């Protein structure tokens, strides 16, 4: 019996795009400049690199330093991760979200990003899903080109172990029509769509933008929830869940304490601004509670311990929260620590039932 589902685990490449070589055509290897035996010059890259958090730096390391070895970078080996994460913590299911593709929504060439996503999906199936049957995959798509994304969803949806979709962040907010073909395909296959911080916020032109440019990693990392708030508001205000009532969205690593204020404020202001968005036919919080889920990591650590349960009550945790560890990132949550003080019923909802409700048989 399933006891614990982890909805945000990152498989990583050991050598960047080179890892995807076996999953790409010769033409695309040429186009991306990979597999050509190293750099051709000293000062400029001659192959594509993956957009990640290159300008906001955690000098202590962005990964758990015990999640790898001298010869193996964290999160790069499915068997090691199965033992180190799943066995150690009693996790029965882990949803894989491409650790090194978090930022591909910022790439200026949509076809390049889509090709990388497709190759990643093959890599994930072969190198992870086939290694341990506790893994489930979020198939990656490139948000820049919805037509190619839809093709990829149809191509991958019925592969063994696929449970959802990972849609990297882009500079277009998630409620806009741009994404509607993707939502239609996701709803058609019953695949929830996860979004996740990209690492590229405010770094690249097509990455999500924040209010101003933070200076420090701590500042930037704490401000990431801005992006999730804006996307949740965009989804709700555009009436995406009126158009696609079966669509489920998972906000991974976006925080969740803020949803209380978002729900209250939307419900209050909607009563006076309803005529601007007449497709919102019920209090906006109802759509959020039905269709959007939030992963728990990084879990809240209020100054007063009793505030944890109060907060979980305010955000309807019994419906909205999905446990996640974010392994192998540095801000990993140990399920025993973060879930220890919860009443058993609520713990069961957060650890298993809420995920089962949206992922269904695929989990």
């Amino acid at each position, binding site marked *: 019996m399933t006891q614990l589902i982890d909805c945000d685990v990152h498989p990583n490449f050991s050598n960047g795009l080179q890892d995807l070589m076996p999953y790409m055509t010769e033409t695309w290897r040429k186009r991306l400049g990979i597999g050509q035996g190293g750099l051709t010059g000293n000062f400029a890259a001659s192959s594509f690199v993956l957009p990640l958090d290159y300008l906001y730096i955690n000098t202590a390391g962005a990964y758990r330093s015990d999640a790898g070895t001298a010869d193996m970078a964290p999160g790069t080996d499915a068997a090691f991760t199965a033992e180190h994460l799943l066995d150690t913590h009693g996790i029965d299911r882990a949803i894989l979200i491409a650790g090194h593709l978090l930022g591909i929504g910022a790439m200026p060439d949509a076809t390049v990003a889509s090709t990388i996503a497709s190759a990643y999906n093959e890599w994930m199936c072969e190198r992870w899903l086939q290694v341990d049957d506790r893994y489930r995959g979020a198939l990656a798509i490139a948000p820049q080109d919805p037509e190619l994304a839809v093709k990829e969803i149809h191509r991958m949806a019925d592969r063994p172990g696929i449970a959802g979709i990972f849609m990297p962040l882009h500079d277009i907010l998630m409620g806009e*029509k741009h994404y509607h073909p993707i939502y239609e395909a996701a709803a058609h296959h019953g695949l929830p769509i996860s979004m996740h911080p990209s690492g590229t916020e405010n770094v690249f032109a097509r990455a999500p933008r924040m209010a101003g440019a933070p200076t420090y990693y701590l500042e930037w990392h704490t401000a990431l929830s801005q992006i999730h708030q804006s996307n949740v508001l965009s989804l709700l205000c*555009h*009436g*995406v869940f*009126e*158009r696609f009532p079966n669509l489920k969205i998972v906000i991974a690593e976006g925080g969740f304490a803020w949803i209380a204020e978002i729900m209250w404020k939307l419900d209050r*202001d*909607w*009563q*006076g*601004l*309803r*005529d*601007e968005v*007449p*497709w919102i*036919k019920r*209090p906006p919080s109802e759509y959020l509670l039905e269709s959007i889920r939030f992963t728990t990591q990084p879990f809240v650590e209020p100054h007063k311990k009793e505030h944890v349960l109060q907060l979980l009550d305010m955000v309807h945790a019994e419906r909205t929260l999905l446990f996640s560890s974010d392994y192998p990132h540095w801000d990993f949550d140990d399920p025993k620590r973060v879930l220890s003080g919860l009443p058993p019923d609520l713990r069961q909802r957060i650890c298993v039932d809420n995920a089962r409700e949206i992922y269904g048989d695929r989990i």
Partner: protein
Amino acid sequence: MATASSPTGRRHVVARAADLPDGSVEIVEVAGRSIGVYNVDGRLYGLRNVCPHHGAPLCRGPVSGTMLPSDPQEYRYSETEEHLIVRCPWHGYEFRLDDGRSLVAPDRMRAKTYRVEREGDEIVLYL
């Protein structure tokens, strides 16, 4: 202001008909209550001048039609009688002129309405 009893409430003359032409509102004081008396295309309405949300002077807000529930990114405007609303001047909440119900929470939020009639040259409110 003349008053008299009636089977449907106490009869209060609140205006002369000539003083309440089409498209106008008079805010009157009846038995200690502030009430908006409306003439919209010859139809008369009486609405308590207190917003049930935060107590704003509701009848100081504009009267209009409203956007009907619609598909995403489409608009359907109507100003037929059942879609006439007064919009609260503070937070913009919409209340139906005919029954005082809020459009978004009709069962929970409702402004009191009163029967208003034209009787000869008099506008009469029953309370």
